């Protein structure tokens, strides 16, 4: 297993909520990444964002791990929640907030931190 894949796996496993996106929360490069980020923050999620654009290998290794072909990808406590469509749909139904409450407790804040992955 490559070192890059190990680092992606640790982020997925260790971070409460991870969002693999195109761009950064400060400079989002894709409408779908933006939709996922907004839904997460609106549901009060602490988001750890990882930009997949600096190196195509990040995206390849991520999809190899998750079995999900597109970006963005959202994980809560290591579990794949889905892409922008699912996260938005779960947010609209209130299910996203419920799952965040269940995984992280109700005492949480919608904050963003970024992790840079460059090989």
């Amino acid at each position, binding site marked *: 297993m490559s070192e890059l894949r190990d680092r992606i796996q640790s982020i997925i496993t260790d971070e409460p909520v991870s969002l693999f996106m195109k761009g950064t929360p400060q400079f989002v490069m894709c409408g*779908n990444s933006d939709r996922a980020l907004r839904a997460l923050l609106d549901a009060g999620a602490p988001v750890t964002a990882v930009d997949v654009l600096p190196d195509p290998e990040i995206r390849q290794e991520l999809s190899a791990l998750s*079995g*999900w*072909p*597109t970006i963005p990808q959202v994980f809560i406590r290591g579990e794949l*929640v*889905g*892409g922008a*469509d699912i996260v938005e749909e*779960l947010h609209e139904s209130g299910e996203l907030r419920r799952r965040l409450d269940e995984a992280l407790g109700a005492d949480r804040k919608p904050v963003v931190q970024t992790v840079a992955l460059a090989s």
Partner: protein
Amino acid sequence: MTVVDALETRLRAAFPDAAALSVEDRTGGGDHFQVVVESGRFAGLSLVEQHRLVYDALAEPLADGTIHELRIRTRAAAPVETGGTA
């Protein structure tokens, strides 16, 4: 055959029972699509599993770049009502 038709053909093959199935070219550019599928195959599956089935059906156009962006909406087809439930 247009790209929209080609994608719809793939989806119909994967979801022959579909109660609703549509492919829309969202931007008119021929590479950003919205697909809607309502099928009995989704019954009992999570949204992640439902979307995976759609990705599987469209694996080739996703891999070869035909689809640049894909929005998916899935619904489990409602079972036939046989009686009233409270």
